[in-house]
């Protein structure tokens, strides 16, 4: 029996927002999220009851992100180089959290900035696999290329993240549990 759509939003809303943020950066993530869930609401009655709802949502989010990217700039820019994403991520989240200056230096934002700095393919592979929970076969289908390439892009991305993101002077932990962070 398929749950009411409200449950879908409650269960997967945050995951899809994080995927959108990783793929598009903060400012465009909200629009992509809205487009994704509005479109999903429309198609939900036709979704097979045994479908993987989260994978379905992440796939819609991917399509909406492509639309957003096309709208944002008409000319096909080489997406491998988007160094401005990190700064956009930072400034927008400042607004989103009511300008709380503390958040700018918070470690979870540092993570998003680090994700934003990854090359396009790695960033998307990390977003869809690690944040969105898609298997590599699905990631490969969305990004084009082989399953092995998707796996490699995502592990390269994570390796780069660990180098960039782990805050300097962090007390030697290998996970990304930043010090002094209330859980």
């Amino acid at each position, binding site marked *: *029996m*398929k*749950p*009411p*759509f*409200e449950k879908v*939003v409650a269960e997967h*809303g*945050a995951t899809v*927002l*994080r995927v959108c943020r990783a793929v598009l950066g903060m400012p465009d993530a*909200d629009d992509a*999220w*809205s487009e994704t*869930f*509005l479109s999903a*609401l*429309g198609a*939900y*009655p036709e979704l097979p009851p045994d479908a993987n709802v989260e994978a379905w949502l992440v796939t819609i989010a991917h399509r909406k992100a492509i639309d957003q990217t096309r709208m944002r700039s008409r000319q096909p820019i080489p997406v491998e180089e988007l160094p401005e994403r990190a700064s956009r991520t930072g400034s927008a*989240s400042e607004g*989103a*959290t009511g300008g709380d200056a503390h*958040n700018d230096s*918070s*470690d*979870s934002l540092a*993570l998003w900035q680090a994700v934003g700095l990854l090359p396009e393919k790695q960033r998307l592979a990390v977003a869809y*696999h*690690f*944040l969105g*929970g898609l*298997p590599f076969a699905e990631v490969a289908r969305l990004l084009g290329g082989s399953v092995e390439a998707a*796996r490699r892009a*995502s*592990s390269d991305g*994570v*390796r780069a*993240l*660990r180098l960039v993101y782990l805050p300097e002077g962090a007390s030697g932990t290998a*996970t*990304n*549990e*930043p010090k002094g*962070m*209330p*859980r």
Partner: protein
Amino acid sequence: MNTTHSSNAAERFDFTPLAKESIELDSAITQLHARLEQQALDAHLLDLAYTTVDTPVGSLLLAATEIGLVRVAYDIEDHDAVLQTLAARVSTRILRAPRRLDAVAYELDEYFAGTRRGFDVPLDLSLSSGFRQLVQRHLPEIAYGRTETYKQVAESVGSPRAVRAVGSACATNPLPVVVPCHRVLRSDGGLGGYIGGLAAKTALLALEARPH
């Protein structure tokens, strides 16, 4: 592969949101949800909108289609179960979207404050059919503060011997309070049954018996 999220230890990275991000995500989702409600209403994609309101007879779930109020449910009916049933019977396109229920919530407020004697919001009676719907259509004709017996209702709808069927029509009323099945009692003066429990039925009858 041991998990879907990492194939070996070297690739492990904990993406679980930290406390601060979780709080920020929650508030972002709240805003995005409000936006989605509006967009869904505008696009006519919201087959069912619902909300809950606190009343003297407990929390009431209110659900409306584009046609009108389709379901009022007491706490003891289990709101989650009611929503799941609505998903199966009406549509899975359901969101918590209080705006569509503003008018009925306001009228319920007035009703429980004793300043309203009847409801004039549009109703969607599609959850019941046939004889049950016939009975439920008759119920609002029982005036505020008055009661009828199951037998009288059976006579009013032209099936004087269908007393039991009237009972089950009242018991399955999808719109309690608004469609006043609480005004139907047994011929011997007993309360009969009530979907919201007898305490709720007693409370509504007491409210309506109060001099206003």
